[in-house]
């Protein structure tokens, strides 16, 4: 229950303070408060070593159908957040993909455990409020690290709170509303978020280990990876940016 209070009350206050006290013109490469972020990063790494990584290692030993089912289930619920955000971005094609995928997977795919939508060509992209703001031209603001949640920027931190107002799943769980006769509770919400985190961590276990082993400054490596990933997600493409122009030796 203390964990839920942390995510529901303390973290949003922390994020609001950051957003209020940071310059909107700051570039993502600039730090909001590097020393604090590095301290939080150390805490997150300790949390990862003692809690998340052991769970992820155990999760990776589960049979493939269990892992795939969990991954499909959490992805299907995440699609709910993509629908309003694709709509806000004016990407009607993606609204169709996300809505179609959610309907097909929730029904034919047995509450999202299976992913028949992929087989019929529905490919929903994951969208959130941070990405929607980015698509509107809002810059990332400065970079920071959030407790437990990890790398973020001022814009994406604000987006995290806004997500809970836009996401239908958050609406029926942590906001105690009902939608089409369906409702849930906080435990449902945080269980799904927890499972998503474990699934992501388990999926990237080798990548994390390799990055940790080969980095001179892991904090900066993860910062770079996070910022590149967010740029790609906002552009909905992974087009390479040519920064090599002056090195035509």
């Amino acid at each position: 229950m203390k964990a839920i209070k942390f995510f529901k009350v303390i973290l949003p206050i922390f994020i609001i303070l950051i957003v209020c006290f940071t310059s909107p013109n700051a570039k993502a490469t600039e730090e909001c408060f590097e020393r604090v972020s590095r301290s939080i990063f150390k805490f997150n790494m300790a949390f990862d070593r003692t809690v998340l990584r052991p769970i992820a290692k155990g999760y990776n030993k589960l049979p493939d159908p269990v892992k795939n089912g969990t991954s499909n289930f959490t992805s299907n619920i995440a699609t709910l957040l993509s629908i309003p955000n694709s709509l806000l971005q004016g990407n009607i094609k993606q609204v169709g993909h996300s809505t179609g995928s959610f309907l097909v997977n929730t029904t034919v795919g047995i509450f999202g455990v299976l992913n028949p939508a992929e087989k019929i060509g529905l490919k929903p992209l994951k969208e959130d409020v941070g990405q929607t703001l980015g698509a509107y031209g809002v810059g990332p603001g400065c970079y920071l690290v959030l407790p437990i949640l990890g790398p973020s920027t001022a814009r994406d931190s604000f987006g995290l709170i806004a997500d809970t107002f836009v996401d239908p799943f958050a609406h029926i769980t942590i906001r105690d509303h009902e939608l089409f006769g369906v409702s849930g509770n906080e435990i449902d919400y945080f269980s799904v978020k927890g499972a998503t985190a474990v699934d992501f961590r388990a999926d990237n276990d080798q990548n994390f280990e390799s990055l940790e082993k080969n980095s001179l400054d892991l904090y900066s490596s993860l910062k770079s990876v996070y910022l590149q990933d967010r740029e790609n997600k906002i552009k909905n493409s992974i087009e390479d940016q040519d920064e090599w122009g002056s090195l035509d030796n």
Partner: protein
Amino acid sequence: MKKICIFSFSLLLFSYSSLLAYSTVPKDFVNELVSEAISKLADKNLNKDQKSAFIENVALEYVDINALGLYTLGELRKSSSEDDISNYQNAFEKYFLKSLTSRLTDYSSSKFEVLGYDKKSANYTIVNSIVTPSDGGPKIKIDWRIYTKNSDRPLIRDLIVEGLSLARTQKEEFSSILNSNNNNIKILINKLNEFVKN
């Protein structure tokens, strides 16, 4: 003793001829190089040292380590002395090779496929590929930035894995180290040397 010499020489000749065998067309170059690397790294008859030696040979021959080193140094490459740059490049090469072999020697078999290419300019071609892990994991998109200024000798300058540029990540990591150390290149060189020693 004679047998050992002949064997060593044959091995050297084989490695050398195999290193020269790749096409100079960027798309085919990547396909041939990676296909051979996959078969070597997945070969259970080769031990870790042999795999490391193979990776190092390929990297020295086909990765533009000098340019990569300069790129990752950022703007500092323009203001540093020749001696510092030379020391940095020595340290960077050792760091790069150690880091690369550490990432690849535990490699498990995957299916590799070149999907296409995009000729960006006379100097650069981006080759698009996809890797399908044999353990059933998700497919991974990898784009290869190939430097083609010398069309007879294409060189790899960057790998963009699922949109994440390894060169850019490295550059930003080094930039952070330099920023927190008054842009002192010697501190970066020391850190690279420490990494290699450990």
